[in-house]
């Protein structure tokens, strides 16, 4: 598996948020604004890289019986460290992510990458996989966050100063007044529906591409899908 395949896997082909549908709980809960989505996405990315790093380094030497347990401990420690750091340096973001920050521990994406990939691969690949999968999750979160924030609050990137620091106060656009936002987009059912629409869009594009490829190729199989 070369680097390009790892990247393509993490970002597109098996994007954890949009294809594997891992970590749906934080994906749906925290994606109500770009700022929140970006904050949780970055925290998850950091933890994922750290846990892949440790898994690649010590994974092969761990007794099989406790390998998963050790990974869980490592992930829990990494998440706790991230949470403490965020409480110290980004308290506003820490407050707005609330319980979903410590809940990164339960994101099965992280444990599954450590167990099924990183612990069986050399370090560079494990790190790249952590970055690719983390970035894939981050992108899914931010996309959903952008759509929900725009529809629900009429803004894009409001509150980014909580993440980036006070220098960014007032960053972000108010596209239309918050009062005329579509509340449904901010509520959990709205998150489900919008994620469903995004998935449907993705599937439709994939299907169309497949059809094009089939039509463009010397046709040995007639296209019956349409």
């Amino acid at each position: 598996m070369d680097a390009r395949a790892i990247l393509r896997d993490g970002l597109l082909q098996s994007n954890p948020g949009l294809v594997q549908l891992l970590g749906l709980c934080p994906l749906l809960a925290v994606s109500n604004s770009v700022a929140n989505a970006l904050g949780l996405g970055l925290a998850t990315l950091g933890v994922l890289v750290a846990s892949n790093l440790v898994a690649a380094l010590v994974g092969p030497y761990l007794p099989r019986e406790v390998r998963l347990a050790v990974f869980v401990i490592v992930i829990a420690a990494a998440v706790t460290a991230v949470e403490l750091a965020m409480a110290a340096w980004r308290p506003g973001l820490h407050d707005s992510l609330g319980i979903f920050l410590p809940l990164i521990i339960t994101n099965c994406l992280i444990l599954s990458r450590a167990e099924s990939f990183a612990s069986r691969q050399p370090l560079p690949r494990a790190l790249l996989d952590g970055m690719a999968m983390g970035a894939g999750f981050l992108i899914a979160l931010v996309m959903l966050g952008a759509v929900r924030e725009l529809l629900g609050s009429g803004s894009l990137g409001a509150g980014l100063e909580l993440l980036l620091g006070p220098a960014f106060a007032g960053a972000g656009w108010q596209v239309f007044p918050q009062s005329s936002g579509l509340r449904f987009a901010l509520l959990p059912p709205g998150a489900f529906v919008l994620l469903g629409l995004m998935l449907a869009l993705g599937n439709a594009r994939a299907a169309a591409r497949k059809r094009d490829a089939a039509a463009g190729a010397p046709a040995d199989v007639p296209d019956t899908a349409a």
Partner: protein
Amino acid sequence: MDTRSPDSAPRRALRAGAVLAIAAACAAGLVAVVNRYTEPRIAAVQRAQRVAELTAVMGGIAYDNDPLSDIVSVHDPELLGSEQPLLAHRVRLGEETVAVLVNAVAPDGYAGPVRLLVAVDAQGRLLGVRVLEHRETPGLGDLIDERRSRWIHGFDGRALDDPPRARWQVRKDGGDFDQFTGATVTPRAIVRAVRDALEYVARHHDELFGAAPASSGSGTP
């Protein structure tokens, strides 16, 4: 099977246990180190947040004490909405208590209790009200949050007799306070809780405002 030697079951179990213990110790060590470096900063940040919370609700009055530590315990399930004792902060200028900030709870919010901070001056007028914690519906009930709308400023300058008692209601119930389109339960709960908190302050005016600064420490439960 990570070793080639035919380990006996007990040996394997011991080895696994030892590895797990070492991993746990390393993780605990890491967390302890991070905690050591972040703890003072987190404490300072939290303190600053609480001070900011308190000053925000005072509407800019002058004071020279530390309201965060100048506290009295208040307890009135009926008027303050909580079975537990709550805190009130005294705001002083010189010898005089110029305001009290009372923590109160609106127990009947749409999605559970709403925690409020109610600032009342010595004449019984509201300096301000802030929602400290709530779980109201985004886009509807959460307009009570000062960061989401100006609604909460509708209480600024009000008192028990302003508006008169019968009009301490949302408009829908014949009162003076706006409700939100599609959300009446939340504003109704807040209006009632603020009025009750004012009532509490009026009934306990002497205890809250009267005590000399020297005895302030005895107010803690």
